[in-house]
C-alpha cells in the first residue's frame, strides 16, 4: 500500500492504495468518479482518458501511485460553475455522442488537442482521435464538434 495525494477536479484527496491500483480504478472505485469509463484491457479504446497536469493520458494504463502529487481533471471536473466547457457544448450542438460511453474520453482527448494546437485541420483532428474508439457516431459529428469548439476555445 502507498499513500498518495492528488488534486482531483480541484479537490485535494489523500488515500492509501495498493501499488498495482490503476488510476482508472482509483477514480471509479475510490472516488466514485464513474464518468471515466473502461472499454478495453489493452489501452486502445480511450474511454478512460483524463488529464494529468493538463495533459491527456489513458488512466487505464497509469498507476495511481505513479502520479502522486499530480493534478487530475476528469470529465466531472470540466464544467465550471454549472456551465459546460465549450467542448461539451460543441458535442451537444453537433450530436457528437450517441450512447455516451466513449464520450468522456473523447471529450478529454479533444480538449487536449485544442490546448496543443489551435484550429487543427480535419485530418489533424481525425489523426489525434486515433486513440479513441467510438462505435456509434462514425466520428463525423465528433470531428464537427472539435471544429466547432476550436472557434470558441
Amino acid at each position, binding site marked *: 500500500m502507498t499513500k498518495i495525494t492528488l488534486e482531483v477536479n480541484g479537490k485535494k484527496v489523500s488515500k492509501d492504495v495498493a501499488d498495482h491500483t490503476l488510476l482508472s480504478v482509483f477514480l471509479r472505485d475510490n472516488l466514485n468518479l464513474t464518468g471515466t469509463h473502461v472499454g478495453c484491457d489493452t489501452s486502445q479504446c480511450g474511454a478512460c482518458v483524463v488529464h494529468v497536469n493538463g495533459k491527456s493520458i489513458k488512466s487505464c494504463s497509469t498507476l495511481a501511485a505513479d502520479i502522486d502529487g499530480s493534478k487530475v481533471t476528469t470529465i466531472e471536473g470540466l464544467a465550471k460553475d454549472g456551465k459546460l466547457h465549450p467542448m461539451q457544448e460543441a458535442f451537444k450542438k453537433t450530436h457528437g455522442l450517441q450512447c455516451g460511453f466513449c464520450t468522456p474520453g473523447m471529450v478529454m482527448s479533444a480538449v487536449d488537442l485544442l490546448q496543443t494546437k489551435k484550429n487543427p485541420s480535419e485530418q489533424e483532428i*481525425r489523426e489525434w482521435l486515433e486513440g479513441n474508439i467510438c462505435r456509434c457516431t462514425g466520428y463525423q459529428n465528433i470531428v464537427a464538434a472539435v471544429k466547432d469548439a476550436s472557434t470558441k476555445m
Partner: protein
Amino acid sequence: MASLVGSRVERKEDGRFLQGKGRYTADINIANQTYAIFVRSPHARAKIKSVDTSKALKSSGVVGVLTGKEIAEDKIGGLIAGWAIRSEDGSEMKVPANPPLAKDVANFVGEPIAVVFAETLDEAKEGAEKVKVDYKVLKAVVDPADAMKSEAIHDGVDKNLCYDWLLGDRKAVDEAFAKADKIIKVDLINNRLVPNAMEPRACVVDYNTASEEITLYTTSQNPHLSRLVMSAFGGVAPENKLRVVAPDVGGGFGSKINVYNEEIVCSWASKKIERPIKWVAERTESFLTDTHGRDHVTHAELAVTKEGKFLGFKNETIANLGAYARVFGTVTPTYLFGPCATGVYVIPAAYSNVKAVYTNTAPVDAYRGAGRPEATYTIERLVEKAAMELGIDKTEIRMKNFPTEFPFKQTLVHTVDSGDYVAGLEKAKQMADYAGFEARRKKSEVNGKLRGIGVSSYFEACGIAPSAAVMSLGCGVGLWESAEVRFNPTGQISVFTGAHSHGQSHQTTFAQIAADELGVPMENIDVVHGDTDKGTFGMGTYGSRSLTVGGIAIVNACKKIVAKGKRVAAKMLEVNEDEIEFKDGEFVALKSNKKKTIGEIAFACYLPGQRDEMKSPIPEGDEPGLIESSFFDPANFSFPAGSHICEVEIDPDTGNVKVEKYTAVDDFGRIVNPMIVEGQVHGGIAQGIGQALHENTQYDETGQLMTASYMDYTMPRADNFPEFNLGFTCTHATSNPLGVKGCGEAGAIASPPTVMNAVIDALGGQEISMPATAEKVWKACKTLKKSNAKAA
C-alpha cells in the same frame, strides 16, 4: 405552435453523458457486494471430466464457487433460441441444450464452466485460477463450409445441421434460368464480425432476503424480454419477483439482445449466496462470448437478358450459428436474410436456400442489420458484376429493374408499401457527381493510383413486427410495443416506453412526438424506459423498431389522452364533445371560444370536484385520473430504402484503400429529428466500411479466437473515414400513422457492397473478399499489373 417532429432538437440525454453523470451498469455498486469471475473453457471443444473447486473455496476472500453441477441440480434452464425454423422437408430445426454453466461438454472457447465469488475482484480472480477443470480435448469443428462433413458436436444434431431452409420456388427459378442470355455467378464470404459495443457487458444483482426479490441491473437492449426468458425458461424467479433494470447502456448493435449465461448465473447465485454480486466483462471476454454477427458462405446466381433485365435469382448459403442457437440466431439467416436477397428489383423467380450449421465458435446472432447486410451484399455484388459483364452502366442496370409502382410485391415475402427507388438513385448520382467520375479516375491514374466507384441500392424490412406475421414464421413472442402516458396533476408528463435506448436518443425523439401530440413543451415530458418495475411490458429495441413500433404506441396513448381530455373539456365547458377542437395544447369550444388548457384538464381529472358544488368534471362512463396506455402492433414491417455511392483510391504499392467519397441517399419516410437520423446513418456506414475494409473475426483451426482484443481486431478509427455526404428522399410509410420508417441499420446494410463494388471496380473486376485489407489488395494489384502487361 411549430411542430417539433422534423426539427433538429438537441438531445435531452447529453447533459448527463457529457458531464460523466451517465449511469451504466458497471457504475453501480451495492453495499456488501461480491465480485464474480467466470472460469471459462480454454478449449473450443472438450469433454469436462471433472471440476475441482476445493482449492478455490479455500482461497482468500472467496465466498462461493458454483459449477454446472449445482445449476443443473437447481433445475435452472438454459439459453434459448427465439425462433423455430422449419427445414424444406418439413422437419423442425435441431437445437441443442445450452446450459448457463457447461457441465459435461464445452463447445467454444470462453464458454463458462464455473463461477467464483469473492470479497474483492482480485480475490475472485485468484480463486478462479484455483478451480481445476480436467478436460478431454476433442477435435473442434470451426469452418462452417466443412461443418456438415465433420463429426457432430451436439448429440442428436446430424451433420451439425440446425436446418436446411428454403424460401421460394426452385422449379420456377430453373425455368427462368433456362431462358436467360447469361448467368452471373458469385461466391461470397460474409465475414464474421464482433459487434463491439464500447461498453462491455456487465451485471449487478441484488437479492432482497426479506421480499425475496431479485433486482438485476444489466446491459440489455430489452429488459422485459430478459425477465421473461429468465423467468419462463430459466426458472430463476417468478416474473413478479424479478426486476430487470437496463440503465444507461453503452451501445448494443444486437449484441445485448440475448440473455447471457452470466446474467442467469449471477441472478440465481445471488439468492444462493445471499449476497449482491457484481460482474463486469473484460474486453477479451466480450470478444469471446458476446454474440457475433454475419459469417455466411454464399453461392448466388442471377439470370439476366443481354439487355440487363433480371429473370431469376438463386441463393445457396451456409450460415454459421456458432456453438448454440440463440434468440435471433436462427431467424437472422432465414427470414431476415432470404426475402431481402432479391433486393430492390423486380425478379420474377427466386429462391433462397440456407443451411445453418453449428460449429465450435461463439454463438452468432443479430448484429446491426441482421441478415439484411448479408442479403444486400449478395444481390448487389451480383448486380454490379452483371453490369460489368454486360457492359451496361451500373446505375442504368439498376434503374432498369427497379419497381416503379407501389405497393411493390417483392418476389419472396414482402409487400413494400411505399418507395421511390429511381428518385433515390438519381439523387445519389447527382450528389456524388457520378458523371464526373471518369475524369477523377484519370487524375488518380496520373498519380499512380487506382480509383474505383461502387454503387449499391438497397431496401430492408425492419421495424420488426407485426406479431401475427412474425409468430406465423416461428417467432416465440409477439413483436408489438407498448407505451403509457401519465399526465401528472401538476402538468408534467411521464412517457413510459417498452423500447430501450442504448444510443438511439429516445428521450429526445419520443419527447418530440409526445409534445406535438399533447401540445405541451418538450421540457414537460420525461421519457422513462429500461426498468421492468416502471411502465408496461415492452419488447425492447432491435431491428430498427423503436420509432415505427414503440413511437407509434406513444402516439396512440397520447391520442387517448386527448380523446379523454375532449370529453372532460366538453363537460366543463358545457358543450357537446364534437364542438371541442384540440389544438396547441388547448381544448377550445368552437362556438363560444371558451377554452381549457390540457394542464387544466389534467388537474381536473385528478381533483374532480369543487367546494360547495356537487359537480364533477368527469363525464359519466369515465374514471378520474389521466393515464393512458397503448400496445401497438403495426400492419406491416417498414421498408426504408436508398442508394449509396462510394469512391475509393488504391495505392498499388501498399494496397492501402482510401475511401475518398461516400454518398448516401436514404428514404426513411417522415423524419422526426434529422440530426439524430444523420447520426444513425453515419454510424451505420462506419460499421459497414469496417466490415468491408477492416474488421474480421478469425478463429484458428483448433477454434482459438485469434482476434480477441483491440490489438488484433481492427476497429475503425476516425482517420479511416472521409466526411460522409448524406441526402434524403421521402415517401411516407403507410403502415403507421406517422409515416415513419426505421433508420438504425440502413447504413450498415448498404455500405459493405457499396465499398466492395468500388474496390473491385478499381481492381478491374477482380473478386476480392471482405475485409479488403492492404495485404489482399496489394496482391490483387500485382495480379492486375501482370494481366495488364499481358494484354499490352
